[in-house]
Structure formats: structure tokens, C-alpha cells
């Protein structure tokens, strides 16, 4: 067994972690397991594709940065994807979850989110067909890093981009008023409202942040793997496993959980082949539920 899985696992884990942040936040602030979250990933990836391809058609000479497979077009695409993630999350909340939150219990929200995720995925498949797509069809040469590990420049960039986004999220949650309001609301919603925090604004902020991060991770997945309508659905199990492993409500936990799941998946693929990749996340999920159901950094309920 060589160390290649570490590089692949970290790149994958960073994307799982980014997606899991939004999941763990919606879980702890809105208090339900949101199956729509995967669709923010897929819709984000396709928005990036449409915008980037459109820009390349408009100015064919835009080219790509140095060793990377993409250029300005995709960076603008990434920005558009994050906006799409925000918009989709806010729309889903406004037209479905908001009313359901007022009239029914948590589990009805989960059912509605499961149904909505299938409807959104089918709609996406209707528009883009089930054929896989790529941001770039160029083959990237992997660069040796020593110890038998090779990485593509894109993988390194994805890791750096994910790290940058994590710093931004950390600053938002710990240094801004909105972030502090979100954390207070997740600790104790009643007390937070008594203290004058606007619950509706916290809910909107949670959806927006989660949607943007999920869409960004979708674009990164598209850069390093491929773009398919089911890519968000396939990410759901790793995302849930990462959020629960890290402890519901803990952002550092979600990132740590994502990295662990990513590494375990890559290790599993190296040992047993790719067919059972999704089972790795499931086994970790079961192990966490058996041994430490509150996760690594979770509070006791």
C-alpha cells in the first residue's frame, strides 16, 4: 500500500468537509436532516459549467492559468455557482420548508426534503441528461511529490481553495455579528430570541452559507472528478457520515469528519477497488453511531 491515497483522500475529504459544514449547520440550527443539501452540490456544479462554457464561447482566447486545467471563466463560474447555491437554498426554504416548519414536526421536514431532493435531481437530469460532463477535457499530468505520491495541480488548487473558504467561514462564524447569532441560535433558540436575535435572519443566513459552500464543493468535485446529475446524491452519505462523525453542530468537526471520510474512502478504494466506495462512509457512520453517537466534537443532547 503506498501513500497515494493520502493525497487523493485529502482532496476528496476537503470537498466532503465543505459540503458537510452546511449540513451540520442546517441540522443544528433548523433541527432536521436535510436531504436537499446534495442538490445544492449538483446544481452548483452545473451552474459553474454553464457559466464557464458561456464565457469561453464569448472570449475563446481566455485560456487557462499556468499548470491548471481552467482559467478566469471557471473562477467566475465558481462565483456564479455559489450565488446559485444561495438562491436555491433560499427558494427551497421560502416555498417549502418555511411553511412546513410552522405547521408540523421535524420528521415531516425530513420527508419533504427527501421528496424535494428527488424532484430537483430529476429536474436537473431533464435539463442536462444523465451524460457526464467536464469543465475541461484536457488530461492533466500528475506531478510527483516524493514518497510515491503524485498529485495533479488541480487537486492542490482545490485543497488550497477549500482551505481559503474554511478560513472565511471561521471568520464569519466567530468574528461577525451574524455568525455569533447563528451559534447562539443553535445552542438555544428561545434564549437567543429573548436576547433580541432575529430568528428569521439566522435561518436565512444558515441556508445561504450552506448553499454557497455546497455549490463551491460541487464545482471542485467537477474539476477533480466529473459532473453528473447524481453527483450530489452520491455525496449525501459521505456528508451525513462526516457531519455525524464530527458531531452535529460543530464546524471544525464537520471538516475533520470530511477529511477522515475522504482518507478512509481513498484507502478503501486502494485496497478493495472503487465499486464499494460508498460503503466506506456507511461503515464509519454505523461505527460512530455504535461507539460515540455524539461524534468527535459534539455536545451531549
Amino acid at each position, binding site marked *: 500500500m503506498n501513500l497515494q491515497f493520502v493525497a487523493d483522500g485529502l482532496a476528496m475529504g476537503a470537498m466532503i468537509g465543505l459540503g458537510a459544514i452546511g449540513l451540520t449547520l442546517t441540522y443544528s440550527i433548523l433541527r432536521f436532516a436535510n436531504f436537499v443539501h446534495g442538490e445544492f452540490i449538483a446544481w452548483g456544479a452545473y451552474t459553474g459549467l454553464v457559466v464557464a462554457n458561456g464565457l469561453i464561447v464569448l472570449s475563446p482566447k481566455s485560456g487557462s492559468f499556468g499548470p491548471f486545467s481552467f482559467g478566469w471563466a471557471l473562477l467566475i463560474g465558481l462565483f456564479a455557482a455559489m450565488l446559485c447555491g444561495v438562491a436555491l437554498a433560499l427558494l427551497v426554504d421560502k416555498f417549502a420548508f418555511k411553511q412546513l416548519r410552522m405547521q408540523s414536526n421535524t420528521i415531516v421536514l425530513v*420527508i419533504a426534503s427527501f421528496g424535494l431532493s428527488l424532484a430537483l435531481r430529476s429536474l436537473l437530469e431533464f435539463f442536462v441528461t444523465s451524460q457526464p460532463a467536464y469543465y475541461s477535457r484536457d488530461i492533466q499530468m500528475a506531478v510527483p511529490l516524493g514518497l510515491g505520491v503524485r498529485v495533479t495541480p488541480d487537486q492542490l488548487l482545490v485543497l488550497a481553495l477549500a482551505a481559503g473558504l474554511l478560513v472565511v467561514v471561521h471568520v464569519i462564524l466567530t468574528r461577525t455579528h451574524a455568525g455569533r447569532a447563528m451559534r447562539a441560535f443553535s445552542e438555544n433558540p428561545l434564549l437567543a430570541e429573548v436576547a433580541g436575535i432575529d430568528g428569521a435572519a439566522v435561518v436565512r443566513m444558515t441556508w445561504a452559507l450552506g448553499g454557497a459552500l455546497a455549490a463551491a464543493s460541487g464545482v471542485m468535485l467537477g474539476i477533480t472528478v466529473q459532473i453528473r446529475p447524481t453527483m450530489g446524491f452520491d455525496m449525501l452519505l459521505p456528508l451525513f*457520515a462526516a457531519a455525524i462523525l464530527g458531531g452535529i453542530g460543530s464546524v471544525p468537526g464537520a471538516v475533520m469528519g470530511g477529511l477522515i471520510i475522504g482518507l478512509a474512502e481513498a484507502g478503501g478504494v486502494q485496497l478493495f477497488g472503487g465499486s464499494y466506495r460508498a460503503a466506506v462512509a456507511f461503515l464509519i457512520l454505523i461505527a460512530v453511531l455504535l461507539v460515540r453517537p455524539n461524534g468527535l466534537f459534539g455536545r451531549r443532547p
Partner: protein
Amino acid sequence: MILDIFAYGTFFLATALTYAIVCLGLNLQWGQTGLFNVGVAGFVAIGAYTSALLTTPATPGRFGGYGLPIAVGWILAIVVAAAASWCVGKITLRLRADYLAITTFGVAVVIQLVALNAEPLTGGPFGIGFIPRPFASLAEQVALYDVLHLLLVAAVLAAVYLVLERLAGSPWGRVLGAIREDEEAAVSLGKDANGFRLQAFVLGGAIMGLAGAIQAHFIGFIAPENYLPALTFQVWAMLIIGGSGNNRGAILGAILVWGLWSFSGAAIGSLVPADFQARAATLRIVVVGLALVSILLWRPRGLLPE
């Protein structure tokens, strides 16, 4: 022409009533006990594959093929689906409610993976064929065969319905309702809430497994793509539209949603040009999803409330 309509009607009803059996299993888990199972397709698949593997003729390179009688296959389908439900329930039912949702979702994903990839066990993407059909000696007379099959499914459905109705009215069923409505009160009266939940979850899973086996032996062929999350979603839509907590609602919902599903399929088939149909077929899920969300918003307790 009349014969065609009759044949289609019996086929349609037989399929709808098989869904109704699955839906009754889900109603026991969700409607009566409040357990959220997102892996319905997985438990149906377990039943279908168990029975198919045991009753088919021997196939080189694949597990099973013992040629056992159909009834034995059905009974073991119930047993294996119950055992799988027990394992899942044992791990998750003591935790917060939506962990069950996430775990059952994972179960369905893993079963789908095994069905696709474990070729020596499940036949892989090509599935399992030559599953023996009840009344096979009458297969020549299609109309008679379909009617007999419909009667068989209806008989099983009636039996499951009667058992569940009796259970719902029994002290056991009342404890389930009490746990769902106010767990603390039930526990303070000395009821083992987790034990009752586990029993309901296992019984519901067993019923889903039975329905999977019945369907497999009706069609005679199963493949992994029969058990995608869309199946889970259909069954949920049936239960919620029909009225969860009400067994008659579950059956009504199954017939209505299967009708909507078949009708939208037929509409797409006749209205949409041929090379566009595969794409348009994905819209059926959107149709059922919209029906579900509108029921949740406008009539949250379903057509036949509890």
C-alpha cells in the same frame, strides 16, 4: 379492445396492490409508531433477492439457485428482511429520531451497491431472471394468469391488512400510539419504548420484504434498478397522500399514486417525441413530488386521516 383494457386493469391493480402491501409496512413503522424509514427500497430488495436466489434453478457462477418452492422463498424473504430490520433498528432506535432516517438511507445505498457489484451473489447489473411464477402452468392463458395473480396479491394484502388492523386495536397497538404521542408518559407507565419500536420496525420491514418477493415472482425478473430511491419516494408519497396512520388510507394512496405514476408515464409516451422520452420520463418524479408537497401543505393529514 375490452380484453386489452381488462388485461391492463388486472396488471395495473396487481402492481398497485403489491405497492399497497409495502405501504402497509411503512404505515406500521411511520404512521403508527413514528419511525422514519428512508430505506424502503432496500428492504423490498432484500425480500425480492432472497426469494429469487432460493427459488430459481441453479445458475453457474452465482450463489443460490436451489429451486425451492415459492412459498419457502416468501417465508425466508420475510425472515431475512426482518433480521436486517432488527440489526438496523437495534443500532439506531435508541438514538435521536432522524439518525434512523440517515442510517436507513445508507442501508438502501449499500444494498444497491451490493446488488450492482456483488455479481456472484446477486447477478450484478443484469439481475436475476427465470424466477418461478405462481400458477406458471397457466402462463399460456395470459388473462387468466393475471386474474389469478391479482387474486393472490389481493388475498395477501387482505391478510396483512386484517392482521395489522387487529394489532392496531390490541394493547400492543395502543402502546405504539402512546409512545408516538407522548413517549415520556408511556415510559412512566412502565412501557419499554425502544422494545416496542424495534418490534414495529421489524414487523414493518418483514412486510416490505414479503411484498418485494411477491413482485419478483410476478414479473419473473429483478435487477438493481428496480430498487432505486425513487421507489422509496413513491411509497412515502402513497402513505402521506392516502393518510398516514390509517391502513385504508395507505391502500387508497398506493392505488392513487400508482395511477398517477402510470398515467403520467402514458401521457409522456404519447405526447413526447420518441427521442426525447428518456429525458421526459424523469419528470414523473417531479409530478409525484409536486402532488406530495401540495398534500403536505394543503391537507397534511392525507385524504383519509387517522
